[in-house]
C-alpha cells in the first residue's frame, strides 16, 4: 500500500502569461528608451560594448534579454540560453515576479526582502535597475509608477509627454 501521496506541482498560467507579456513589452520599451531618452542612453554608454542583461523568473522563466550590439541597445528576445550574460537579475519564483511586476512591491523593497538574485557586477546591475525605473516612469501613469520606483522623478512635462509617445510607438513597432 502506498503511504505517500505524490503531488505534482501545478502551473500558474495566468501569472506566467502576465509576467511574459510584461517582460516582452518592457524589453521592447527599454530598446526604445535607449533611442528616445538621453539618461537611458548615458547609462548604456557606461556599460561594455557587448553588454548583455537578462531579467526573469526562476526556475524556468519567462525571461527577457537586453544587449548592446554595434552600439545599439536591442531587445534580444526571451531566451537567455547559450548567451554570455554580464548581469542576470532573477526573481526567485513566479509569485515574486507577479508581486513586483504588478507594482505591489517596488524593486527596491523586493531587493531588500531578498526576493531577487543578482549575478554579475553590482554597478552594472544598478545601472539596469535605474534604466528600468526610467522606463516604468514613461510607461505607467504616475499613480502606479510611484509604487514601482523608489523615488518618482521631477521631469519637465515635455520630457514625459514626448518621451512617452516616442517609447510607446517604438515599443509597439519594435524599432
Amino acid at each position, binding site marked *: 500500500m502506498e503511504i505517500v501521496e*505524490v503531488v505534482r506541482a501545478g502551473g500558474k498560467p495566468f501569472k506566467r502569461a502576465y509576467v511574459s507579456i510584461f517582460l516582452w513589452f518592457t524589453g521592447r520599451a527599454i530598446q526604445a528608451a535607449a533611442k528616445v531618452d538621453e539618461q537611458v542612453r548615458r547609462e548604456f554608454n557606461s556599460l561594455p560594448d557587448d553588454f548583455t542583461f537578462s531579467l526573469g523568473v526562476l526556475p524556468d522563466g519567462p525571461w527577457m534579454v537586453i544587449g548592446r550590439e554595434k552600439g545599439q541597445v536591442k531587445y534580444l528576445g526571451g531566451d537567455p540560453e547559450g548567451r554570455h550574460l554580464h548581469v542576470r537579475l532573477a526573481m526567485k519564483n513566479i509569485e515574486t515576479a507577479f508581486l513586483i511586476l504588478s507594482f505591489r512591491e517596488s524593486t527596491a523593497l523586493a531587493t531588500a526582502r531578498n526576493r531577487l538574485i543578482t549575478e554579475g557586477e553590482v554597478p552594472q546591475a544598478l545601472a539596469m535597475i535605474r534604466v528600468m525605473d526610467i522606463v516604468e516612469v514613461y510607461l505607467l501613469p504616475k499613480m502606479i509608477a510611484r509604487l514601482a520606483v523608489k523615488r518618482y522623478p521631477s521631469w519637465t512635462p515635455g520630457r514625459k509627454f514626448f518621451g512617452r509617445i516616442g517609447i510607446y510607438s517604438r515599443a509597439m513597432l519594435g524599432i
Partner: protein
Amino acid sequence: MNSDSCFTFTCPVKTNSGNIALENLPVELSGLNAGKPLVVTNIAKVGRKAVRTLTGAFGDSGMSLGVFDSLGDKVDPALIEQLRTTFIEEEYDSIIALGGGTIVDSAKILNLTVSLKITDVRNLSAQTPVNRNLLPLVVVPTADATGLETAQFARLNGAVLSSEYLAPVLVVIDPRLTRGKDVKTIYATGLAALGRALESHIIAKENPFRQAYSFAAIRFIRDNLPAAVRNPDDKKTTLAVINAAVMSGCAFSGTEARPLHKLGQVFQEMLKIHPGIIMGMCLPHILDDYLHRDGNGLASLLHPLTGDEEFAQTPEAQRAGAAVSVLHRFMADLHSALGKDVPQTLREAGVPLYAIEDIFEVLDVDPNGVYLRSVVERIRDKTPMAEKKG
C-alpha cells in the same frame, strides 16, 4: 560582555520569513542540490489547508513531491521505518517537516535513518554518533511550534539525540501558516519561546552570538505576544511569535538543559501538554528562585525586556529585581487578557494526581530532581499571585 572570553556557537539554520516565503522553497531546495522532497506532517494537527498552501507554493516549479500527512502524536519507530523504505525506493532527496513538536522530531529521526542508512530505528539512542552532514531537512513551522524545531535535538520516546547535524538547514516561516487556531496555541508557543530564550540569555553572558539570538527572541515576544493572544488570527504578530520560537531554538542549541525546559519537556512527553503551558506556570516561580539564590544572570534580562533607557537608568544592583518585576507584570497582563482560556495551575490544566506522581518519579532521576519537584508542587493548584497572597 568580555570580548576575550572563549566561546563556540553553531547555528546551521537559514531562515526565510515573511510574505510568500513558502514560494522560495523550490529555489532554496535547488540551492541545496535537492529536487524531490518528501513532506511529512500530521494533518489532524496542521489542517488540510496548511498542506494545500505548502504544495501550492511549488506551483510552476515543475517539481513533484511526496506528501505523508498521517504522523501521530509521538515518534513511531515502525512508521519511520516504513517511511524510510518509501524514501529510498522512491528516491526522495530531502525532507520538509510541516508543523512543530513531534512532527519535526519524526522528520529528524527519518532524516537520520535515511542519511546514515540505519535500518532499525529502535537501535537509536542518545549515544548514537551523528557526526556527518545529513540530507537537507527543511522545517515549515505552524502556530503550534515549540521552539525546539531549530534546535540540534531530536526526541525519540524518552531518548534525546543531540548533534548539530540534526538541526534543519532551512526554516521557512510564512504568515499564512503561523496564525493560531486559538488563543491557547499561540500563548503556549510564545511562552515556550520566552522560557527558552530567557534561560539561554541568563547563561549567554560570555557568548555574544547566543545572546544576539536570545535578545531578539525576548524582544519579539515582549513586543508581539500580548497582541497575538488578543488576536491569534493576526498575521504580523503571530509571524513574530513564530520567529521568536525559531530564534529561541537556535539560542538554546548547545546549552545545558535548564529547569524551565526540563519541566516543559517532561509534561509534554508524559501528558502531551504543550511545553509552553507548563513553562508559563513555572516561569514566575523559577525566576523568583533565581533572584533569591544569586540573581547574577537575571540582570542581563532587563535590557531585552525593557529598553535602552530603562536599562541605563536602573542601577546595576537593582537590575535583576527589576527584570523579575517586569516579567511578573508581563505574565499578569497576559493572564488577565486571557482569563480562563489558559490554565495557570496543573489542576486547571486537568492533570490528575496520579499523573503528577508519575511526573515525580521521572523528575527524581534528574540530578536537579528535588528542586524540579518543588516547582511542580507549587504549580499544582496555586497561581504565583495566589501563592504570594497566601
